[in-house]
């Protein structure tokens, strides 16, 4: 690995100060599973690196009636094994639970996954459908960014010499369910060719009163599929209506062709996986 200067911060304030002090070209290091790979293999040459793993305040995972607070430094395995996340925020549990290997999940953080801004990130579509908010701190204070506004392109975010401190997710009502799945040729240890996350709320008649659908790896960022959401909302969740929404989602995907599959193949996957994910999410909502 090429050489770089490395500073370990022990507080968010110190991390921000280091970024301001050393200026352009610095990178933040959280779990290391993306950044170090990019330095080793993708020619990334940071002017310096600020390490965040020593900051205790980023490690907090807690929930109450209002929702879930995920510190940016919370590990994937901590999210995936948390009882509340499993029960109420299950799409996020699905996503965090399939990132890389057990080793990866002991290292990779939710904040890192979000900030790496890969369209294939496994917590991306779940956080999107769960309506997450990203909390950011910088020299000028703190701000909140809706998750769908946070990513601006592959590997790009709205961050400007800032640190993500935590992510919040509003508590879903009891009649809600969410689900995430991804397509990979191997069972695990793989990157999504397509990821689909679905969140639904059912009213007293069993009709879908609220639907959020997000797609991974089929656009420059994780994207919502509003036409699919519209197709699903306002009626019962049947196989036929799920399929209709799946077809709508396929029309909203703009995948590229690469080593993980052709655009045509990925578009097909969006349709069948969205359809399946809707039915799984609905099952959970009824659960």
């Amino acid at each position: 690995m090429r050489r770089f200067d490395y500073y370990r911060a022990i507080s968010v304030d110190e991390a921000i100060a280091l970024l301001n002090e050393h200026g352009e070209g610095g990178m933040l290091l959280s779990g290391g599973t993306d950044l170090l790979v990019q330095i080793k293999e993708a020619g990334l040459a940071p002017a310096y690196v600020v390490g965040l793993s020593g900051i205790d305040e980023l490690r907090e995972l807690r929930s109450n009636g209002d929702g879930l607070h995920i510190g940016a430094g919370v590990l994937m395995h901590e999210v995936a094994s948390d009882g509340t996340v499993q029960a109420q925020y299950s799409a996020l549990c699905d996503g965090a639970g399939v990132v890389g290997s057990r080793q990866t999940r002991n290292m990779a953080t939710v904040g890192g996954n979000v900030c790496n801004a890969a369209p294939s990130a496994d917590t991306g579509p779940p956080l999107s459908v769960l309506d997450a908010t990203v909390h950011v701190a910088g020299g000028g204070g703190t701000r909140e960014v809706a998750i769908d506004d946070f990513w601006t392109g592959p590997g790009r975010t709205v961050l400007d010499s800032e640190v993500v401190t935590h992510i919040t997710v509003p508590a879903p009502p009891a009649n809600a369910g969410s689900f995430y799945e991804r397509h990979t040729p191997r069972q695990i240890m793989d990157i999504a060719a397509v990821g689909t996350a679905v969140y639904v709320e059912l009213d007293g008649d069993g009709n879908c009163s609220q639907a959020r659908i997000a797609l991974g790896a089929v656009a420059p960022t994780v994207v919502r599929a509003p036409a699919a959401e519209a197709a699903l909302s306002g009626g019962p969740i049947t196989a036929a209506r799920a399929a209709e929404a799946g077809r709508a989602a396929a029309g909203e995907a703009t995948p590229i062709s690469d080593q993980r599959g052709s655009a045509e193949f990925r578009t097909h996957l969006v349709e069948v996986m969205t359809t399946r994910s809707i039915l799984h999410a609905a099952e959970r909502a009824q659960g």
Partner: protein
Amino acid sequence: MAKQIFTLNVNGRDHEVYTEPNQSLLEVVRDELRLTGAKEGCGTGDCGACTVLVDGRIVTSCLVLAPDAAGREITTIEGLADGEKLHPMQQAFIDHGSVQCGFCIPGMILSSVALLEENPAPTRDEIRRGIAGNLCRCTGYRKIVEAIESVAGS
């Protein structure tokens, strides 16, 4: 690129390390401490050959910057046996014919030990998923799974 001094606790012993901070935990353990049991198979966290325990949990040490491991308990394959008495997982790997070329084995054994710590009675499928971050090219995995199963069952 100033060198840094920090202390790594490896296999119960403190080691003072003076090195450039871009060194991975794997590089320091192998090249500075000369504990070469952990292997580099890919350098990108995709093969598991460099797996070590940090505070009891498995990580791919090729993706940990060594200074980030300061103050934590690190266990490598060299720290698993109790003197000349092998850890039951090490013995099981020998007894079940689970070792061929051996390059993946240090990481594989540490993943297996940690798996049973977290889940003392895994199903065969849980074992298979539990070691999926450790690639083995020689064995086809069956005899490895059987070795882990034998330790879990004992």
